[in-house]
């Protein structure tokens, strides 16, 4: 009995130690490997979703293959980045950036796709529901964003101390040149500062904002697809519509308020995370309940309630939690 209690205590202590260690790593921006893996997973999921969403759209244009290829690339790179620092520093940002750009291009194509449907944007509700999902490409870009951040981070086993920012950011020709020539180095410099903050784990505001924005997008998707379903399950189908805007507000609010970021943000994020999990469960149930059930697995998967969509809300929640653990830049 006693030994068992001791064992339990030891386990608990260990767990607590792990926990503080992880928290510390996050606070200090030393979690490149884990975030790379998270980015890889996110990319796998969103790639999977795009694959079947675009299958629904029959790959009517060749550009519809790009997100599939890129997400496969990002998944592979993310996993590789967990093992290899060089890949994490060099390849990961490149692929991630491509994914982000593809998300934006996709967004433009989807807006155009709706415009070309009969009635176009003059019957917006119909065509947004039945046409290409407008915000889905931006949500797809999220995994790219994660990969990009991961590439800036330090690895878990890096030394805790970081050389001061001034040493890393040479103040080159800030005042010389005009226009673009002037802007570029400044951009670069600001980029460098941002990167430094990330490496120090001081990018709470950024992640919180992204969590808020992505929650907004998935809230919109939920709104119109649940509207299509006529809110048959009133409370269940309304829940993301209540939680997503809250997360959006707190996430954006966290840009200004550290308080918000450490109090309300984690609570609402946890809510979003679990609502997404619940949604996934109910969507899976919905798929099984479609006529034909498992006898038409692929068909019911693509035309049943979308399995991955609630997971995207969960992903926003995850980002919010992450943000709560992070620090803010020292000089504010």
């Amino acid at each position, binding site marked *: 009995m006693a030994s068992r209690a001791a064992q339990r205590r030891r386990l608990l202590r260990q767990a607590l130690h792990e926990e503080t260690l992880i928290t510390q790593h996050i606070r200090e921006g030393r979690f490149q490997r884990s975030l790379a893996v998270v980015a890889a997973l996110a990319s796998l999921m969103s790639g999977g979703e795009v694959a079947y969403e675009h299958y629904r759209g029959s790959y009517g244009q060749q550009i519809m293959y790009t997100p599939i290829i890129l997400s496969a690339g990002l998944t592979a790179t993310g996993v590789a980045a967990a093992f290899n620092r060089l890949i994490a520093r060099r390849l990961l940002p490149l692929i991630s950036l491509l994914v982000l750009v593809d998300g934006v291009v996709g967004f433009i194509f989807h807006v155009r796709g709706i415009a070309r449907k*009969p*009635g176009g944007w003059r*019957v917006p509700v*119909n065509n947004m529901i*039945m046409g290409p999902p407008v915000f889905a490409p931006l949500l797809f870009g999220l995994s790219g964003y994660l990969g990009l951040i991961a590439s800036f981070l330090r690895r878990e086993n890096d030394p805790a101390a970081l050389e001061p920012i001034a040493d890393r950011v040479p103040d080159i020709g800030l005042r010389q040149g005009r226009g673009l020539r002037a802007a570029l180095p400044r951009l670069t410099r600001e980029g460098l500062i941002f990167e430094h903050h990330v490496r120090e784990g001081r990018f709470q505001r950024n992640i919180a904002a992204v969590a808020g924005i992505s929650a907004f997008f998935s809230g919109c998707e939920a709104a119109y697809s649940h*509207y299509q*379903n*006529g809110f*048959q399950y009133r409370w269940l189908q309304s829940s993301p519509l209540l939680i997503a805007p809250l997360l959006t507000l707190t996430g954006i609010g966290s840009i200004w308020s550290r308080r918000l970021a450490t109090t309300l943000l984690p609570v609402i994020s946890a809510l979003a995370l679990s609502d997404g999990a619940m949604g996934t469960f109910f969507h899976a149930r919905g798929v099984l309940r479609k006529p034909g059930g498992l006898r038409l697995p692929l068909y019911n998967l693509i035309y049943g309630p979308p399995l991955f969509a609630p997971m995207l809300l969960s992903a926003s929640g995850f980002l919010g939690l992450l943000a709560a653990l992070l620090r803010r830049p020292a000089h504010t």
Partner: protein
Amino acid sequence: MTSQNPAADHLLPVDPQSGSPLDPRRQPGYYPGFSTLDQRAFWDAATRQTVMDRVEQVPAIRFFDGGEAATMQAICNRILPQDDRDPERRIPVLNYLDNRLYSGMSDGYRYEDMPADGDAFRLGIQAIDEISVHLHAKRFTELEMAQQEEVLETIHDAHPPAGGNIWKRMPVDRFWLLLVQDIAAAYYAHPWSWDEIGFGGPAYPRGYVRLENGKAEPWEKDEQRYEWEPPPGARSGGYRPVGGGRPHHAPPGQSGTH
């Protein structure tokens, strides 16, 4: 107010519980307040034109002469009774039917043993009057509702007691299908009938978003059923096979589906 008398003095459908007649409505059917015409701004211009012309430019009677038109009107009233509709909301099926015959719009075929459509109608009207006289010694227009239905039922059953020389020129069951089909086609082409049965009407450029489980579009209405039965004494309320169940020409489907 329960009516004990089955041979009622009205032509209105009744509430099966109380047996009392249901007042005529602006829009019978289980979708009160549903109006396809209200959605017409969402239709494309060509469709709107076609449907609005149908509603607003009712063609005059030009094919049937006065007497024929009166009999034909009475026939239409029984083949597709509209007594449960407000008088100003009755669909002028006779006018549409007359217009089809007048303009020679054909379905693209004729049975070998049938006369041309227009002649078939003229002969049919004659035969119906002959049956009326045979059964009740009156013309069709002068009969009670139940008697009129009785006359038509003999044609539905392909067993007309009179008009033999006409039926030699025109198989009775083919005439029945022609008659019912044309009147039904006129009635169910009208947007008021779509409201009655809950059909969404034209749907271009805006299509549908709720495809499954019989869900209503945001602009459609949910069903609100009420119970009703045909007027007491009506014979057309039940369902019997065309030809009355006796062997006859098996009627093939009249409409394209696949």
